[in-house]
């Protein structure tokens, strides 16, 4: 009896366990298939304009991504824009599974949005190993360029010219520039000093060269070096304090920026807690540098800058920051120094608004000034410094250098403004250009007959057909009862 019971158990148990085993093996095979396919994705894009296929350029760049990259997209939930962004990012993810994509609703997670300094919906932050790139308009061109900049390992170098009594980047005193150095390094730059006397030309790795408030005049060879640099597409920042022109008056004039021996007096500044000699800037002209920037900046003891009317044709001058109209540039320095008073003299002094920050763009001399329109391969090669001669030279002049020193860097928007300028100058032009065919809109305007048919076909005709079939079957079957 006992033995039989065991047999009974054994047959059922055998069947049960073999059934379980089969299921497990089968599931394992299926998982295996899934894993293989997940790792070898393949797809067909059936859309007319290949909306979900990336260009060769992007694909090549995605192939070269070896480290994990996170893309954080700040979008409101359930919006059309989010769907579009999702489509694009999914397409990237298909070509590069290493990408990690996160959608964050800035309204639900304001803390993350703040952490990434997100100011508008649709901002996308691309991040890897401590580096990040932010784009505000999501499309293939921008995203691919952002990725490209991220995976380029080079750090950009900012040179500070020394040797003329400039505040040092290693000086931790109140007049020093150590704060600037620290903040720039945080932004992933390398900060170096540059002695112009000992170099025949500006180093090739220079992204931006800064001359911050020289006390002594630069020598002619030094100025020639700078001139060569700017003319061949270099980026230069010149900061000149009142009474110290560093021997650059002529140099600046050649680039359309005029300086005079004056000091800016701003009565409005008192309202903001400054002094008469510390002009405040609350409004900025529209320029990429000051885009989305609306914090007041203070320029202690600043000189005025003016636009030189007659310049070379390839030079374009822009005013970046202007004081209020209540300020003026005082030329009567003597009175100011001796009596500590100043008054506006319409004959001598320049009436406000006075320009404190100016920018000059120097187009490359040859005709082929646009970089765009080249095919992908040469573009890839051209990402180095070889074609520096074709880049636009840019020069930003400040009528002041103190505003960014250790004392004033943290004041209001000063630091950010300075960093914006450096970021702007150091940023490369988009490395590649991606042209997607623009879709033509296909508006649909229905005649009343058409709109009636749009209703009738699916909601009346097709259901009627179903009912008709049902009735036919019903009739046939009634006969079969």
């Amino acid at each position: 009896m006992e033995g039989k019971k065991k047999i009974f158990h054994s047959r059922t148990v055998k069947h049960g366990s073999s059934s379980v085993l089969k299921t497990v093996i089968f599931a394992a095979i299926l998982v295996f298939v899934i894993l293989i396919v997940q790792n070898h994705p393949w797809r067909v894009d059936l859309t007319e304009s290949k909306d979900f296929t990336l260009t060769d350029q992007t694909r090549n760049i995605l192939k070269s991504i070896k480290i994990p990259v996170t893309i954080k997209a700040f979008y409101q939930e359930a919006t059309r824009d989010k769907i579009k962004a999702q489509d694009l990012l999914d397409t990237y993810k298909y070509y590069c599974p290493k990408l990690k994509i996160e959608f964050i609703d800035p309204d639900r997670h304001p803390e993350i949005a703040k952490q990434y300094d997100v100011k508008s919906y649709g901002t996308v932050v691309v991040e890897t190993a401590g580096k990040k790139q932010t784009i505000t308009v999501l499309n293939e061109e921008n995203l691919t360029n952002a990725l490209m900049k991220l995976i380029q390992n080079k750090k950009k170098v900012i040179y500070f010219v020394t040797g003329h009594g400039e505040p040092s980047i290693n000086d931790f005193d109140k007049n020093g520039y150590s704060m600037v150095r620290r903040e720039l390094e945080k932004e992933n730059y390398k900060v170096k000093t540059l002695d112009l006397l000992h170099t025949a030309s500006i180093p090739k790795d220079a992204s931006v060269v800064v001359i911050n408030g020289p006390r002594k005049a630069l020598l002619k060879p030094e100025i020639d070096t700078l001139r060569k640099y700017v003319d061949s597409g270099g980026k230069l920042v010149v900061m000149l304090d009142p009474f110290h022109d560093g021997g650059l008056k002529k140099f600046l004039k050649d680039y359309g920026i005029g300086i005079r021996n004056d000091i800016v007096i701003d009565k409005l500044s008192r309202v903001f807690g400054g002094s008469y000699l510390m002009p405040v800037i609350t409004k900025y002209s529209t320029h990429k540098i000051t885009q989305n920037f609306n914090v007041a900046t203070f320029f202690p003891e600043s000189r005025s800058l003016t636009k030189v009317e007659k310049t070379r044709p390839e030079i374009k001058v822009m005013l970046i920051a202007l004081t209020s109209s209540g300020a003026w540039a005082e030329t009567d320095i003597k009175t100011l120094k001796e009596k500590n008073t100043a008054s506006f003299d319409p004959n001598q002094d320049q009436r406000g608004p006075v320009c404190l920050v100016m920018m000059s763009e120097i187009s490359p001399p040859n005709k082929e000034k646009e970089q765009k329109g080249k095919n992908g391969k040469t573009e890839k090669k051209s990402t180095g410094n070889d074609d520096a001669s074709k880049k636009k030279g840019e020069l930003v002049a400040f009528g002041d250098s103190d505003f960014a020193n250790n004392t004033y860097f943290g004041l209001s928007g000063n630091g950010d403004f300075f960093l914006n300028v450096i970021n702007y100058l150091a940023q490369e032009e988009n490395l590649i250009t991606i042209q997607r065919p623009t879709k033509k809109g296909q508006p649909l305007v229905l005649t009343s007959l058409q709109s009636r048919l749009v209703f009738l076909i699916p909601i009346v005709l097709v259901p009627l057909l179903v009912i008709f079939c049902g009735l036919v079957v019903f009739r046939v079957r009634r006969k079969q009862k």
Partner: protein
Amino acid sequence: MIEVESITKRYGSLVAIKDVSFSVEKGEIVGFLGPNGAGKTTTLKIITCYMPPTEGTVKVDGIDCLENSLEVRKRLGYLPESVPLYREMTVKRFLKFAAESKGVNGKKKEKEIDRVMDTCGLSEVKNRIIGHLSKGYRQRVGIAQALINDPPILIFDEPTIGLDPSQIIEIRQLIKDLGEEKTIILSSHILPEVSQVCQKVIIINRGKVIATETPANLTSQLQKTTRIILRVKSDSEPVDSIIEKLKGIPGVMNITREHQEDSLVIETDQTKDLRPVISRTVVENNWDLLEIKLHDFSLEDIFLELVTKEEEAA
């Protein structure tokens, strides 16, 4: 043809059949007898490969049901208990499905369908929906689907249950005719049905085979006595005195009162029919005769008999 070797089926802790063995020879019609819940249907389901036995083996034509059930199923025609059919189908469409399922295709299919419809008398209802047919017709459809593709073995589970007498006779005749060429297993709980049709009877109770006999043997074994049911009425005499008087008749062995006051069961010697004598006695005593008849042995009676015997033997 069919060899059942000590099969046991358990549903969890419930034992449906236990150690059942029997064999069916080619060309035999075997009756499978037992009360409801005795395990007939379970046994048949195992033979038809619908479910596997927990123990034991079943071989059909030498093929093991568990190992090669498709081959076994090809050799079987099965009419399950309560005749499950696709009620939404017409007779012809259903038989077409059965034919296709059994691998009959092409021109042969139509022929085969016509043949079984002929055999079962379904031709006039062939385009009607099964759900609307009478019970008798449905039974025939059930048999017809079993006959498709001419399987050598037919298994019918309670083929006559729920039919009216004339239908029962028709179906029995049909089975008898089929039995001339085929091996048939037929389950039933009605003895006469089995004894009329079958050459061998297997009796099963509580999951065990308790007898395998020919019908003749069974009857002779069991019917050592004949029962006569008598209903009489008398205004003057009490029932007890009637019983006393009847017991005086030679050959009467025992008289018991049935649930009805005036219904008496008289057990008599098997060798002679005592009805004439009894009726005369009734007339002589001036009783009113309401009914007198020979009692058919029901399966329950046989069971009582067999089970008691078995228990005595144990």
